[in-house]
Structures are given as structure tokens and as C-alpha cells.
């Protein structure tokens, strides 16, 4: 957890066009949530629709992709990461520092707005907010870690991440039965479903897996992705000429 790496990463993340999207998207979401509250008079069912499908299903993975690829992708791409790698700092520390920045950014710009949108759009005793908050937190951690690791492992991380988040989880998940079991979104929804108890079905919050399976798989995938990313960073080949 190298503080200098974190500082440089924060500087890099916030100083680019990427950051415009990161600011605009939560604002748009919260604006929508507020409008929906006015229109539906705070109906929790409507709120669950907005938060569950749009916020959690579309916005969150996309923001995690932007953040996860943004903390390390551009530096690997133009080779400036050599200035981090040619220091007596363990590669593990470098990746974990960047991951920490990414997770913090995800928390502030993605997870909290998703939870807030449920609260703003309409909730009953904050049950929806809590449930979606937990789901967003778990999914956010997993997505972000996966995409950070993917950025180290492949130069085409964005496309692969998009194909996964949108096609695999989104489209195929609806048609092919087995796919739903291998989906970060489903794993993260399991605790949410559990928390909402009997109301879950009414809100459209269902999960293909049980809570224990979901949490375990999330942990496995997150830790595994981080480990793979660190391993690849140790042997990273910089784009050299000659």
C-alpha cells in the first residue's frame, strides 16, 4: 500500500476525460431517482426497478470498468508505468495501492450513489437501500478488482470487460441457464435477496445462487483476480522497441 503510488494514481484518474464520465453518471442517476420519486410518490417497487436494473445492472459495472481500467490501463499502455516498476517497491504493493484507489473511487462514485438512488427514489424503512447498498458494495468490489487485474493481463481489457459485463451477464444470462451461476451480479444479489426476505420477489430482486455460494464465489473471484494481477505485474513486459 504505497502512498506515493496512490497519490500518483489519484492524480492520474482525476485529471483525465474519464473523470468527467465518473462525475456525470452518478449525478444523472441521482437526478433520475429524484424525478422518479416525484412521479411515483416514492413507490418502493418503482425504485427497485430503477436501482436494480439500471443502477446495479448497467451503471455499476460500467463505472467499475471505467475506474478499474483507468487506474492502471493507460500507464501500461503508454509505458509510463516503468517509473513505478523501476523502484525498490514490491510489485504487490504497487498493484494493491492502485486497487485501493480504485475501490475507494468505486465506493464514492458508484456504490454510494446506487444506494442513495434507492433511498431517494423510494424506500420502506431503508430496507431497499440497505439491500441494494450491500449488493452494490459486493459487486463493486468484485467488478473493480476483476477489471484492474484484467487491465494488467490484457491490452484489450475494456472490450473484454464490456463483453463480459454486458453480453455475458446481461444478455446471455437471460437465455442460457448455466450462465447465471457464473455472474458477479447474481452472486451480489444473493445477500440482497436474503435481506429483503419475503419482499424480495415483489421487488424483482432474485438471485440464482444462495447467499453462502454467492459470498464464497465473490471472495474467490476477488482474491483470485488480485493474485493473478500481481503475478502478471511481476513479469510485465513493457512495450519495447528494438
Amino acid at each position, binding site marked *: 500500500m504505497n502512498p506515493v503510488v496512490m497519490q500518483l494514481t489519484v492524480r492520474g484518474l482525476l485529471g483525465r*476525460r474519464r473523470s468527467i464520465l465518473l462525475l456525470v453518471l452518478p449525478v444523472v442517476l441521482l437526478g*433520475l431517482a429524484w*424525478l*422518479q420519486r416525484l412521479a411515483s410518490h416514492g413507490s418502493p417497487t418503482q425504485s427497485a426497478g430503477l436501482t436494480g436494473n439500471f443502477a446495479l445492472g*448497467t451503471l455499476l459495472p460500467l463505472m467499475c470498468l471505467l475506474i478499474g481500467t483507468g487506474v492502471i490501463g493507460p500507464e501500461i*499502455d503508454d509505458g509510463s508505468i516503468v517509473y513505478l516498476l523501476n523502484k525498490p517497491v514490491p510489485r504487490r504493493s504497487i498493484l494493491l495501492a492502485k486497487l485501493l484507489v480504485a475501490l475507494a473511487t468505486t465506493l464514492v462514485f458508484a456504490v454510494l450513489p446506487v444506494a442513495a438512488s434507492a433511498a431517494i427514489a423510494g424506500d420502506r424503512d431503508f430496507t431497499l437501500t440497505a439491500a441494494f447498498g450491500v449488493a452494490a458494495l459486493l459487486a463493486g468490489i468484485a467488478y473493480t478488482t476483476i477489471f484492474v487485474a484484467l487491465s494488467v493481463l490484457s491490452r484489450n481489457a*475494456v472490450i473484454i470487460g*464490456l463483453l463480459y459485463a*454486458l453480453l455475458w451477464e446481461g444478455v446471455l444470462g437471460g437465455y442460457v441457464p448455466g450462465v447465471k451461476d457464473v455472474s458477479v451480479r447474481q452472486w451480489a444479489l444473493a445477500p440482497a435477496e436474503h435481506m429483503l426476505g419475503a419482499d424480495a420477489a415483489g421487488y424483482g430482486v432474485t438471485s440464482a445462487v444462495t447467499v453462502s455460494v454467492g459470498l464464497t464465489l465473490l471472495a474467490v473471484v476477488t482474491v483470485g483476480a488480485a493474485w493473478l494481477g500481481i503475478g502478471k505485474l511481476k513479469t510485465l513486459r513493457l512495450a519495447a522497441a528494438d
Partner: protein
Amino acid sequence: MSGPVVPAVPAVPAQPAQPADVIHDIGFRHYDDVRFGRGWVVRSLLVDTLRGVFGLGRPARSKVMPWILVGILLAPPLVIALVAVLTHADTLPISYTQYLSRLQLPIGLFVAGAAPYAVSRDLRFGVLPLYMSRPMLRTDYVWARFSGLAIAMFLITAGPQTLLFIGALLGKMPLGHNLTGWLGGLAASVFLAILLAAIGLTIAAFTPRRGLGVAAIITTLLVVSGVSFALSGIARMQGEDTWSAVAGAIDPYRLVDGVASWVLGVAPANPELAPNTGAEIAVFVMVYVVIVGVCALLLGRRYRKAGRL
């Protein structure tokens, strides 16, 4: 060719003759024939863009995403055609125009991957002066790239529609009805292709960093779609059906679908939310023109700066 030319030296004793400066012909080939003009250059760039979008003439790695998406787009029509033939259905389960809205995700992913290929690389590596040193204008470049991308978008939307049509024919469905439907669908495809290409190209031109353009385009399309549906839903809850329909104008797919279904007289993709009065359609058409116009303007400004050395 002739060797060094030695000028005749008058009798100056013991003065070695200085050879004149000369360039020898060592086989350099001159080209004095006809050179093709601007039109040819623009057409070549267009074809190159079109081929490159589909990964032709590029390494295998860049063929993966476009052809996966093409496969995803063509698979359902095949299935539908099969089902139609086997069940002897009378009509297709999905209309030609509805198909475009149904498959907006793969279509969106395609333009998200194709637009950065078309413009981002040249901007990132600053090679635009190389293009501009050829007999082409800055606007020619943008026009060629846009046209290549738009044609590609048309192909991937018209292709599945054509497959649907073939399926309908094989299933012995009424020809006249399907023919008009198919042609109408193609017309809708044209407008959708132009719109998506314009939006995609503009976003890609402002996000040259590798990967950012792809993410930005698909995020924009999805968010705009989500927002438009949410706004429509909110408006409907308030009983404001007009606003509910007009909110669809910000989503490219609903925009094209709304106008197309009204003009062609076919069922829209979202019946309760589609525009159905002349005023609403006028707004839609205006929004279309404004969006394309704004994109053209932004692209012009972007490339005004980039074309300079």
C-alpha cells in the same frame, strides 16, 4: 545515364578539373502519368475504413469482436426463420423495425468498437498531417471515415433484417406485406446507421486514449437509453403521455423507431411510449437533425485543430 559533366577547362596548368554537381539516375522511377484525384482518395479511405471495421486486412485479434457481434446479430433471425418454417407461421414474431430496438446492445457494442478504430488511432498517434499532405481536405477525411462507419453500421443492421425476410419467404408468408416491411426496415436501418455513426464518431474523436472511446460510447448509449426509459416511465406515472413519448427522442433507437413506425405504419417497439401525433413526430425529426448537425459541427471543430502539424 550520363556521368559527371566536366566543363571544358582552358589551358590552366596543373589545375585538376572540378566535376559539376549532379544527381545520377540509379533506377529511381518517376511517375508522370495520371494521378487519381480527391474522389479516389476519399473512396479508398472509405473502403479501408469499412474493411477495417470488420477486421479485414488486420490481424486476427481485431476480427474477434466484430464477428462475435455479427454472429450474435445474425443468430436470432436464423432461429426465427427456422421456427417460422417449421411451425408454418403466418407472420414473423418480430417486425423488421422492432428488431433494431431489440438488439440495441450488440449494435451499440459494434459501433463502440468500430468508431474508435476509425478515428481514435489517428488522433492518438498524431498522424493526421500525413493524411492532410495528400490531395484531400480535412472534411474529406471526416466524411470518408464517417461514411465507412455508417455503411458498416447499415450492413450489420440490414443483414439480420434481410435474413428475417428470407426466412419469411421460405416460410411462405405473404410476399407483398413482407416486402414492404423489409424495405421499410432497411430505410429505418439507414437512418439508424447514420445517427449511430455520427454519435459514435464524435465521442471517439474526443476520447483518443486506448479503450476509453469504447467504454465512453457504450456507456453513453446505455445511459441515454436507460434515462429515456426512466423519464418515459416517470412521465407516464404522472399521466403526461406526451412527455412520455417525447422522452424517447434522446435515445437513438427509440428516436428512429418512433419515426419509422409512424411513417411506415408498423407496430413500434414500445407501443405505449411511442409518439403518435404529428407534433411529436415533428419533434423527433427535429431532434434527429439537431443531433446529426451538432455531431458534424463538433467533428469539424475537433479536426480543425488536429490537422495542423
